[in-house]
């Protein structure tokens, strides 16, 4: 995965208030720079649940089409 895509995605999720970020302590292996740490907010957890639910529902519908059984 390209790092650039990770930045973009994290920025969008933060803008939608699904995650929050803060800077950690400076670290020598980063040339004295800090790391950005990510926390998933409750809305983010709920969104993940809803999306996975929706995906499951869709997959469920597709099972019928594909002739699979649960």
């Amino acid at each position, binding site marked *: 995965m390209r*790092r650039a895509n990770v930045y973009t995605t994290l920025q969008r999720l933060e803008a939608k208030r699904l995650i929050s970020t803060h800077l950690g302590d400076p670290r020598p*292996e980063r*040339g004295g720079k800090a*790391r950005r740490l990510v926390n998933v907010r409750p809305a983010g957890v709920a969104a993940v649940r809803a999306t996975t639910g*929706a995906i499951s*529902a869709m997959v469920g519908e597709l099972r019928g089409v594909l002739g699979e059984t649960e």
Partner: protein
Amino acid sequence: MTSAPWWAALLVRSLAPRDHVDDVLGDLEEAHRSRAGRHGTIAARALTTLDAVDMAAALIRSRFDRLRTNTGNSMIQDYKLGLRMLVKYPGLTIAGGLALAIAIGIGAGWYDLSRDLLHPKLPLPNADRIVEIEMRDAAASGDERRLLHDFIEWRREIRTVEALGAYRTVERNLGLGDARPEPVTAAEITASAFRLAAVPPLLGRTLLDSDEQPGAPPVVVLGYTVWQQRFGGRSDIDGQTVRLGRTTTTVVGVMPEGFAFPVNHRLWVPLQLRASGYQPLEGPPIRIFGRIAPGSTQAQANAELVTIVDRARAASPKTYEHLRPRVLAYGGESPGDRSWFELMLTHLPVVLVLIIACANVGTLIYARTATRDAEIAIRYSLGASRGRIVGQLFIEALVLSSVAAIAGLTFADWALKRGMDAYFSGQPGGPPFWINPGLKLTTMLYAAALTVIGGAILGVLPAIKATRSHPHGQLRNLGSGGSTLRFGWIWTTVMIGQVALTLILLPPAMGITQESLRDRAIRGRFPAGEYLVVQIELDREGVIDESDAEFAARLDRTYREFARQLQRQPEVVAVTFADRLPGMGPSVREAQVEPAPGAEPVNVANMWTAAVGPQFFETFGVPLVAGRDFNDTDRGTAARTVLVNEAFARRYMNGASPVGRRVRYTAANASNAEPWFEIVGVVRDVGMTPTDLGEAPYVFQPAAPATVRPLVMGVRVAGGPEMFAPRVRSIASQLDAGLRLDEVRSLDDLAWRVDLPQMIAAAALASIVSLGLFLSSAGIFSLMSVSVARRTREIGLRSALGASRPRLLAGIFTRALVLVGSGVAAGNGVLLLFIALTAEVDLSDVGGALIGTSALMLTVGLLGCVEPARRALRIHPTDALRES
């Protein structure tokens, strides 16, 4: 330990958001050190450079992404989606668009009209300082315009108003050489008008103070259109002589195009005042204007004028007892005449129409939003913000209201131009020069504001409601084919209100349409196409010198000779005159009728009257059915005889002969009652004045040409009257240059113009009611569609559990019936209240109509349920069970 190359760090640092610089650089550094450990310094530098370039590209993309979102790239997509929605839902587009177009069109039209009429902007320099001076007669509740004496006094004394001037409007025949003279609206005006208007002439000069002096040679200044149309724009017109009425006058100048000061005048001649002056309230009526002097205000001018008139009142208390002068803004209302609040109130009905239309269309849009429940839920749960979805629905509604606004504005522009033309066509000279029919930029901006408000009501309210519930709940419902949206009490109230309003408007719409069609049918039986209407005026030149009696005698002679010459034409069957011909609109007076000798007189609020000349009834083919016709003795001043029509006998005499009975007009002052007129004959109904109770009852008075105002000639012509019209004009111009024919057209055409406003009103009301019926039906349809869609599972389960089809249908129709029934009940309630409060309407007369309209509304409402009911019946129990 090697660090990330400086160029890579610089590239990333320059593009990273300020609050992310540290961590992004840290990431770059950490990755570089890791690479250096694994691949060596050189390879690590190359890879880190590539990494930095990739990061820079992503950072640039993300900046563009934000920029695009901010500048509305997504808005363009929303607009496209909105346009697609218009095509996808044609019913909503037509119904909603029509309702909004009407609302926005009315709003913009009224705004434009109110600005033109109440706050006109004069296209003259210092327009806001130009004023009109009026003298209010408090006793007569009108304006006193015989102000020549006061004008001369004010011109001498007043300091706060400069360029004080006066004018009066006169109609004159204008001719050059052998060309046929034609009437033109002229202003007899003081030369100060041209100083005040400060518009230089196109050719020659304007009027001068010396032209006003008694005995000065007669001069005229031509307007641009007169110069172009009558004189072909001849550049040598300056100094030429023309015939103005019976006076030979020298043209001294031509004014530029568009100049029509003081109102709509196309020709200016000096207002010459008598050297000996005037007594108070002597002379012809005039209008006075001026410009507030520099350093003064309108209030100061008003105060000064009041002081001057107070002095005059002290000298002549009786004359000035009730006269109150006031200084007004020219052409419109003065600042302070009405408060801002009152002006806003005049726009209230317009806003109300918009709100009603929005409420109607909002119901439909809300139903559409409900059908798009799934789309909204998926977008919402995949991360679209609530604002983004509300914005999208707002823009969709804005597209609809914008399309409607364009249609509404186009219609308003057309209607305003046509309406102004029609309104001013009956007035000599046309509209005032400051009125510019057609929509202006400010009106467009106002309409744009209405459009945005409409879009907000239509788009935002349903969107807020649609996105209020949590996306998880909506997602859960997706599989079930149901909707979480419900019609709340607001929309239900709107529906009920709409049904009630339509019901209230139905009876008047049906009534006025019926009446209009009936009147046209009845009048169609009269051969109005055989008659030519000629309205006659005789110039009263030397107005100050010719006495009223002399003028009356001259008018009488001129008319008789004109009628004699017309009668000699082979096409002319008969000639007569009256103050109005059949079908030309009513003249009503308050009167008393004596039903039997010595009986108590019956008061009649509106007695239809006409003053008619000799051979009036023969000319119009109206036979005498009782008594006698007028003779020459009846036309003398002492005679007090009248004829009536059969409708009069039916209405006031219970069928008995009215001959020998009496009628009189009621004076405003009871102690000063007018003398009685004796009815000497009865004529058959003409059939041109239908009312709800049959032909209008008429009282005909005998008249002489000099006593009739207006003097309208009726000429019965064999063959087309329009073909004969040019000959009538030719005969008149040869007879007397001062004889003006202000109107020469067929009676058919004139009667049609009288009918036109009623027919327009009927058509407008019928359209509004039809739209109301359509919107009601569409609203019920939407409501029931949503209801059925939401209850798919319930209906399916009930069907599976053995509920019969009639039972299912009853459930759907009952809900619609309750809704429409509430509206019908509310509407009938208002109508019954109105009937109870109005003495003129009897419940037994309108009961049938109320039942009929209620049945119609219920039918329309139930028709809206047909398709949703069909959908409900198509739901198969197994489908519903599988979904659940």
